[in-house]
């Protein structure tokens, strides 16, 4: 038998085998992807379960509580519509606290970024002892917030604080200053500490971006005759834009939700003048024992924060795309 007698594969046959192969391959892929899917679920399961248990469930409970009539001792007596929200918005102090929250978040976030940038540029430069300075900058971030707040409080204590005693010994003031005695100076103290503890993290985010900019870009710019300001404007800033944006968003969340700092330093006082919506949640729940209103404010707080972040995201589409 010659080779030529062997039946030559027809186009149809080729097509069908190919089809079979493709189908077989597809089945294999489907099987594999199904198996992969099962595996993904198994792998993600514990994490998803944990998220559901510690994040989703409390949120559901919080929303439910915000629509419930809760007794002073904490017994849930049933649904009461939007009464808690109405009571909350009717509180005479509510508007002031919203304003205070806006003041707190905006000043600390702006102040933090404004300080983090020059600090990041400094830490990116080459100078002796840079490593030590880099570590030193991290300290305020590594320290627990309540500890920082306590140290700050003691430094500025009216009678025993090192600041007052030093100023008096230097003859700069005649009698001690009550740093937390009125709302303006209490806010100043809070904002300074707020920026102090937020700067390290933001600095490191920006520093990370600066370090990833290749030196060749600057060299090329120099060859093209760009000075330091021009290369900062045209290279550094655009290259670190996404990181700066990230620092702003993370700071917004952190500062908006800061509790320990304010609570330890001023307790929301004098009066209610340094309360933010976040500390007021606690005051409502465990001071006024108004658990329903407190839950309502928690919901309002999440919506507020979500809204602010959405605005920031939308206004920075470019940075958002870079993040993807």
């Amino acid at each position: 038998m010659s080779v030529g007698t062997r039946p030559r594969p027809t186009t149809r046959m080729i097509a069908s085998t190919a089809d079979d192969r493709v189908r077989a391959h597809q089945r294999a892929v489907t099987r594999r992807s199904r198996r992969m899917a099962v595996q993904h679920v198994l792998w993600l399961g514990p994490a998803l379960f944990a998220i559901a248990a510690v994040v989703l469930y409390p949120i559901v409970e919080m929303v439910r509580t915000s629509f419930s009539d809760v007794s002073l001792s904490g017994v849930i007596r049933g649904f009461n519509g939007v009464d808690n929200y109405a009571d909350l918005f009717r509180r005479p102090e509510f508007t002031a606290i919203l304003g205070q929250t806006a003041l707190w978040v905006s000043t600390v976030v702006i102040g933090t970024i404004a300080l983090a940038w020059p600090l990041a540029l400094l830490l990116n430069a080459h100078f002796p002892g840079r490593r030590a300075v880099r570590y030193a900058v991290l300290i305020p971030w590594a320290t627990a917030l309540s500890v920082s707040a306590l140290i700050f409080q003691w430094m500025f204590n009216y009678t025993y604080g090192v600041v007052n005693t030093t100023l008096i010994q230097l003859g700069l003031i005649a009698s001690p200053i009550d740093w937390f005695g009125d709302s303006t100076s209490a806010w100043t103290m809070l904002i300074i500490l707020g920026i102090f503890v937020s700067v390290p993290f933001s600095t490191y985010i920006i520093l990370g971006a600066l370090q990833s900019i290749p030196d060749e870009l600057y060299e090329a710019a120099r060859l093209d005759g760009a000075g330091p300001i021009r290369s900062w404007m045209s290279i550094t800033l655009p290259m670190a834009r996404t990181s700066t944006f990230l620092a702003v968003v993370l700071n917004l969340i952190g500062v908006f939700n800061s509790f320990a700092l304010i609570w330890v330093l001023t307790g929301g006082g004098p009066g209610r003048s340094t309360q933010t919506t976040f500390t007021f949640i606690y005051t409502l729940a465990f001071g006024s024992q108004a658990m329903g209103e407190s839950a309502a404010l928690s919901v309002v707080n999440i919506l507020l924060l979500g809204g602010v972040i959405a605005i920031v995201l939308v206004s920075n589409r470019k940075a958002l795309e870079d993040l993807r």
Partner: protein
Amino acid sequence: MYRTYARTAAILGTAALALTGCSTAGADSSGTAEIDIIVPIYSDATQPFWEGLVDDFESEHDDIKVNLQTIAFADLTQEVNTRVSTQQTPDLLVYSDFAALAADDLLLPAEDVLPAELLSDMQPNLVSAGEYDGQKYGIPFLASVRALFYNKALFSAAGLTEPPATWDELIAAGQKLVASGVPGYGLAYGTTELDADLSAYMWNNGGEWKDGDAWTIDAPENVEALSFLSSLVNEYGITQPGGASATRNDVWQLFGQGGVGMVQGANFLPTLLQAAGSTVDIGIAPMPTSGDADPVSLAVEDYMLAFRSTQHPEAVRTFLSFVYADESYSDLMTAEGMLPVTQSAQEIIAERNPAQAPFIDLLQTAKFYPTDDPTWPTIRSEVRTTLGAAIAGTTSAEDELASLQSLAENR
């Protein structure tokens, strides 16, 4: 592939074990009655004393197991609230704000868990302060009482021989102390225990928080009392500087260091100050009055609350008899620097520690915050937040008390 499956299974299995492990606690086996008790930490002595007490009790009663939970005061309200809303109330709780719990019908009256002779041994005004709706839901557990504390050395240096008995004398004494170079009266008006200051001055001016069921926070006597406190700061200038951000502990500390002549102190303050190394020679007197009323002292009472949810009321009764037994109860009160509520223990303490005797006397006629009103904690929180401004003089006493009154009426 098999290896990854095996690993996944192992991880899931471990997670499942960890989860089920959590749910086995609290099971009741072999007929042992388990009771849970929550005690706030009053001092460093609290935890070791109660642990010893529970050990002693359990060795005498092997059919009862006591689960003791001690907790910081700062976390107490939160813990109670959480337990109530999640329906995990303990069997026993030491707490001051009993009325809201009683109003929700969560508590057992004293008669149900206390032997009759123990109940009748308790000081009557302490018992009646714990009544809600005619029932003794707040079982007296311990008390403290406030008085005017003065520094004897600073007084004689300023040429003063007697503590002030009236408001006018308080101002005069304060001015003499100031002239001798120390602040006269210690007054903290940051976010602090302003309910104690207002109570002491309004009661000694014939004012009240409530008249029967009606709140009388904005009564003229109370406005006068708050204005008087403000005048000590702004008109007479006899208070220590820096009061606007100070707390009770700040002025107590200052007093302990001889930095101020007078302060409203408490029976447990001498112990605190001595522990901090203070050597001030303390004089004690009733709080001064406006001249229109007999002197009244403020007493603060904490209650032993028995929850209706208890599965073992008999075990609770047995345990409470043990807790209030004269010897160990007096030891506990001595360790905490607090005043006992049973007359028999008061006699023991007065004999053992003569310094506490005058406070036990003051306690007999003392007055209490309106803790029998469920809304009191809400009012108290508002008092502490808002009245500082009135004392500092940035808002008016009348306005602040009027808004408190309307808050109280609308709760």
